């Protein structure tokens, strides 16, 4: 395989995303932001 060829794709994109801490930190902060906005309103 050359370096330009795609690497092996994950069996499940959603599985890879949902087990990634890079997803959960922004998701939790977003939820917190919506709660703050609701409180302010």
């Amino acid at each position: 395989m050359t370096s330009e060829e795609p690497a092996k794709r994950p069996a499940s994109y959603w599985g890879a995303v949902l087990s990634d801490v890079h997803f959960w930190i922004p998701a939790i902060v977003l939820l917190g932001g919506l709660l703050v906005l609701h409180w302010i309103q």
Partner: protein
Amino acid sequence: MTVGGNASSATGGPADGTRLQQLQALGMLCGFSAGAWLGAAEAPTKLVTAGVSPMVVSLLMVAGVFLARWSLPALVRGTAQIRADFHAAPHLVIWGVLAGCLWAVANTLTIFAIRDIGLSIAFPLWNLNSLLGILWGVTLFRELRGAGKLRWLGVTGGAAVMFAGATLLAVASSAQTTPSHALRGIVAALGAGVLWGTMYIPYRKAYLTGMNPLSFVAFFTIGELGMMSALAISYSGGAAGLAREIGHAKPALFWLMLGGFVWVIGDVFQQYAAKYVGISRGIPLSNTNQLWGLMWGILVFGEFHGQSGATLARVVAGSLLMAAGAGAIALASVSQGEHERWRKAAQREGVRYGVAEGYLRAGLEGREAESNSSGKKGRNWLDWVLVLGATAIFLWLASAAHAPQIAMNWTAAGVLCVAMLAFLLASAIALQKVTKFQ
């Protein structure tokens, strides 16, 4: 010079020192340009916000952002390149949408914060996002690892000095405002800072993976407009209520959307800064926007007219501290060792999501991946429709806009605009020359 022919790069090793220095200088220049344009983005909104609800202000700015974020990339690179980026790393669409949602909520919080405690106090509070950006950069993306004590000191010390300068400016500016609902405003400003500081996680993830900033912002804006529309409809009592509010704000539409457009230019430079110097350096540099905002306030809108000598001394001291902090960060260049850690963080992304190694490496080295360059180049009919459509909408809104009914120093405004254009030209030429907008 291109990196494609570099032997060490071709074998997956680190990019050469000269190339790293070029990318470093480019990232720093983009960081300073971002500060100039982001600082000016608040100026058009200052002309018109009276009588318009915070939700409508935010939604209309986002509408301007949406137009700019599709038309500018179409003009610079063409939508075919966006499609190629999507095929190379489709998982990043999720992070683009997530980042857009974070931005929309943060921007709405800032409008409530400005209403409750004033721009001058709210601004430094939400600019704490740069400290959070450093934390995420170090813990999640291996930034500053292997950088040496001096560079650590340069970045963290520079960010701390900038924060001290921002606080001094806030103290000076508080003479301008009579804060009401202080707790609510402070929580809103801090909340915006946390949301924006965390938004840099998706940014950094995208650029470590090799995505072009002009592609990422296109995905970003879908989350941004979707979230902002949902919030505006919800808080306006339904779509009909929102339409009524927008109808009442018709004379202000152009100025608010212009603010969004100006903001996008600053944000695009911020994205390139995050790509080439990381979020721990790029975000504090773009936070020099507070200095630019202050210059617009003092020189154009005469905000400090008649203030005491002590207040003006605080403004000068705060501005000097912010400039010194930015200078310290600019001098804390990325070493070969630290760049190697970035490459390892990028490899983690590649293995996890199946991204081609060549695509990852090309992104880090600021060149186009071969998989992208083999595709169709140039602009197609869709690109021209996007560019002409956005231009027509802005011209139509401008024809219905009312001239600002506020005292302004037009000479100072002209000088600041020339300075912004100089940053724009210098950064655009450098981006084209060094990376061809990669």
